[in-house]
C-alpha cells in the first residue's frame, strides 16, 4: 500500500501551496476540511448571537439591546446556524467520508465541489454585512413571513440574494453527492451494501434538490412583491400572505430532515463500532430513512395549525405528522437493539451518540405533542416550540457532528485526541445543554411567547437558569476548539483502524488518509 501511495504523490506534485492551494483545490479531503472549519466559525458566530439573546433574557425588562436588534439576533442566529453551521458541517463530513466509504478516488464533480464551497464565504459576508446597515439586518424571523418581511429595511434583497447563493451551493453539493454515490462505488458494493451514512446522505441529497428550489421560488416571489409590483403575498393586490407560509413550509419541513438524516447516519455508524456488533436491522434503517424523507413532503402545514384551516386539513396534517414517529421509532429501536448484549465501551464519540439517542428522543416526543392539533393551539409560538426544535437540533444534529469529528479525527489527521479532555467536553456540553433548553419547556407551557426581548416576571427564574446554561454551553465549546488544536499539534500515532470495532473501507486506508486514495478501486465482497 505505502509504495503505491509514494508513487501517487509523485504524480501530483504540481499543486500550488499556501492560500492558493485552498482556493483552487478540487480534492475532496481539502474541501471537506474547508467546509468543516467554515462550519465551526459559523457555529461560534451564531452562538455569539444566541448569547446576546440569552443575556437580554436573563431578566425581564430591556437591559442590553433594543427590541429591533433583538429581533435581528433571533433571525440571524437561526439563518447562520441552519445554513452556516449545520448544513456545511454535514456537507464537509460527506466530502471527507463518502469517497473513502464507497472506495472512490474523489467526488464525481471535483471542480463543482470547489465552487459549492467557495460560494459560502461570499453569501455569508453579504448576509452578515446587513447588520451594519443603517436599517439593520433582517428582523422578521428566519421564516421571512410576509407582510412583516416585506416591510423590513434595506437588508431584505441582500438576505434573499445570499439565500439564493446558499441554495445554489446546496443544490450543487447535492447533485455532486448523488452523482458520486450512484456512479462511483467500488465494484461489488451494491446499494444495499453501502455504509448507512452513505445511504442517509443519498436520501438527504434528494431532499435537497427537491426542497431548495422551492425555497428559491418562495423568496423570489417575496423579492418581486417588494420591488416589481407583483402581488403573490400582498393583500392590497389580491395576494395572500398565508400562501407564503404554505410554500415556505413545503420547503421548510423537508429542510428539518435535511438537518437530521445525516445525523442518523452518523449515529448508526458509531453505535455499532463501540458496541462491537453489526448494526441491527440495516434494511429497516434504509427503509425508515426513505419513509421519513417521503413523509416530510406531506406534513408541512403542522407548522401553521393556527392559521385557519378546515377541520379535514388539520386532521390530515396531524395524522401524517404522527405517522413519522413510526419510522423514527424503528430507528431508535434499532440503535438500542444494536447495543443489546454488545461489548460496549464509552469513548467520547460513543458518549455523544448515546446522549443523542436519549435527548433527540425527548425532542421527538415534544414534537409529537406539538403534532396534536388541539394541543398545538396552546403551544404554538411559545417557548415550548423553541425547546422542541433546540432539543432535536442541538443535542440532536450538533451532537452527531461533534461525535463524527471525534470518531473520524484520527483517520483525518493520524492523531488521537485527548480522551480525558474529550470526556470532560462531553459532560460539560451535555449538562449545560439540558440546563439551557429543558426549562424552556416549562416557560413555554406556562405561556411565554417566543421571539420577545421582554417577558412577564413569573418566567424569570427559568429564564435565568436557561441563560446560565447557555453561557456554560458556549464556553464548553471553547474546550472543543482547544482539543482540536491540541490534537493537531501531536505526532502521528493513530492506527490505521483507530477503533477496535470500526467497520468500513475508510479504515483500510492508512492514518492520516493519503491525499489521494483508492485510485484503484478496492474489491468489496
Amino acid at each position: 500500500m505505502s509504495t503505491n501511495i509514494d508513487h501517487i504523490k509523485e504524480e501530483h506534485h504540481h499543486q500550488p501551496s499556501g492560500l492558493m492551494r485552498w482556493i483552487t483545490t478540487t480534492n475532496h479531503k481539502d474541501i471537506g476540511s474547508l467546509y468543516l472549519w467554515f462550519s465551526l466559525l459559523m457555529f461560534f458566530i451564531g452562538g455569539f448571537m444566541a448569547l446576546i439573546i440569552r443575556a437580554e433574557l436573563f431578566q425581564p425588562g430591556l437591559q442590553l439591546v433594543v427590541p429591533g436588534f433583538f429581533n435581528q439576533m433571533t433571525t440571524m442566529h437561526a439563518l447562520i446556524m441552519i445554513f452556516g453551521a449545520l448544513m456545511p458541517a454535514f456537507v464537509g463530513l460527506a466530502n471527507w467520508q463518502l469517497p473513502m466509504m464507497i472506495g472512490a478516488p474523489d467526488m464525481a464533480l471535483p471542480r463543482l465541489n470547489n465552487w459549492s464551497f467557495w460560494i459560502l464565504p461570499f453569501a455569508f459576508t453579504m448576509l452578515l454585512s446587513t447588520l451594519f446597515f443603517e436599517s439593520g439586518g433582517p428582523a422578521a424571523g428566519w421564516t421571512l413571513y410576509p407582510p412583516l418581511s416585506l416591510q423590513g429595511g434595506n437588508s431584505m434583497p441582500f438576505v434573499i440574494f445570499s439565500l439564493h447563493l446558499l441554495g445554489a451551493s446546496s443544490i450543487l453539493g447535492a447533485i455532486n453527492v448523488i452523482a458520486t454515490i450512484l456512479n462511483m462505488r467500488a465494484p461489488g458494493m451494491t446499494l444495499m451494501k453501502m455504509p448507512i451514512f452513505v445511504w442517509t446522505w443519498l436520501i438527504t441529497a434528494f431532499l435537497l434538490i427537491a426542497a431548495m428550489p422551492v425555497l428559491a421560488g418562495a423568496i423570489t416571489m417575496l423579492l418581486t412583491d417588494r420591488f416589481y409590483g407583483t402581488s403573490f403575498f400582498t393583500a392590497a393586490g389580491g395576494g395572500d400572505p398565508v400562501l407564503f407560509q404554505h410554500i415556505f413550509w413545503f420547503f421548510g419541513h423537508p429542510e428539518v430532515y435535511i438537518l437530521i438524516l445525516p445525523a442518523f447516519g452518523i449515529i448508526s455508524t458509531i453505535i455499532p463500532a463501540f458496541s462491537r456488533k453489526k448494526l441491527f436491522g440495516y434494511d429497516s434503517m434504509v427503509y425508515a430513512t426513505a419513509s421519513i424523507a417521503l413523509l416530510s413532503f406531506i406534513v408541512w402545514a403542522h407548522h401553521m395549525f393556527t392559521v385557519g384551516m378546515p377541520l379535514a386539513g388539520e386532521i390530515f396534517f396531524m395524522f401524517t405528522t404522527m405517522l413519522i414517529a413510526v419510522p423514527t421509532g424503528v430507528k431508535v429501536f434499532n440503535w438500542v437493539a444494536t447495543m443489546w448484549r454488545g461489548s460496549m465501551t464509552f469513548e467520547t464519540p460513543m458518549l455523544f451518540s448515546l446522549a443523542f439517542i436519549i435527548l433527540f428522543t425527548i425532542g421527538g416526543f415534544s414534537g409529537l405533542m406539538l403534532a396534536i392539533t388541539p394541543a398545538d393551539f396552546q403551544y404554538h409560538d411559545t417557548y415550548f416550540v423553541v425547546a422542541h426544535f433546540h432539543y432535536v437540533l442541538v443535542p440532536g444534529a450538533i451532537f452527531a457532528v461533534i461525535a463524527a469529528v471525534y470518531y473520524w479525527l484520527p483517520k483525518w489527521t493520524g492523531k488521537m485526541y485527548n480522551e480525558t479532555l474529550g470526556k470532560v467536553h462531553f459532560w460539560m456540553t451535555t449538562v449545560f445543554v439540558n440546563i439551557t433548553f429543558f426549562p424552556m419547556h416549562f416557560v413555554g407551557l406556562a405561556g411565554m411567547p417566543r421571539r420577545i426581548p421582554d417577558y412577564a416576571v413569573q418566567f424569570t427564574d427559568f429564564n435565568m437558569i436557561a441563560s446560565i446554561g447557555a453561557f456554560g454551553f458556549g464556553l464548553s465549546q471553547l474546550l472543543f476548539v482547544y482539543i482540536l488544536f491540541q490534537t493537531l499539534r501531536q505526532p502521528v500515532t493513530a492506527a490505521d483502524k483507530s477503533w477496535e470495532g470500526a467497520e468500513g473501507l475508510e479504515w483500510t486506508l492508512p492514518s492520516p488518509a493519503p491525499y489521494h486514495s483508492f485510485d484503484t478501486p478496492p474489491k468489496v465482497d
Partner: protein
Amino acid sequence: MKSVKSTITKLSLVVVAMYGFSYALVPIYDTFCEITGLNGKTNEVAYTGSDIEKENRFIKIKFISNVANSAPLYFEPAVTEMTVQVGKPYNTHYVMKNNSTKQLHTTASPSVTPGKFAEYFKKIECFCFNQQTIDSGEIKDLGIQFVVDNDLPTNIGDIVLSYTMFDITNKVVEADKL
C-alpha cells in the same frame, strides 16, 4: 463518465421542475381555496348570474373595516349590522375620508367569515372591484350591492364581511411614471 453526465442531466431537470412547482403552488392554492372556500375570499368580479329566488329566511350580516399599515384614512361601515332576507338584493355603503394633505389611491380587500360561507355571499356591485382615488380631505361613500344565495346552509349564525383598505398611492404613481 457517461453515466455521471446522465445523472447530472436528470437531477438538473428535477431542480428546474421543483422551481417551477413552487410557482405552480400559487394557482394550486387559489383553486384549492376556491373549492374548499378557505380564507374567505369572495367573488372578485360582479355577480351577474340569474336572479335568486327569495326565501322566507333571515340572516344577520355584520360589517367591519380595517385600514392597513396605519394609512391616513378614515374608513368605516355606514351601518355595522343588517338583518337581510335570503335571496333579496340589498344596498349599503362604507364611508372613507382622506386625512392626509395629498391625493391618495386606495384599494380594498374583502373577506367573509366564516370562510366556508363566502361563496354564498354574492356581490352584485362593490367598490372593491375597482381602485379609488380620493383627494385630500374628501369624504366618499363607497357602495355595495349584495345578495345572500338561497343555497346557504340553514344551521349557521351570523356572517361577517370585512374590508381592509390599502393605500397604494406609491405603486400607482410609480406605474404612471413608466
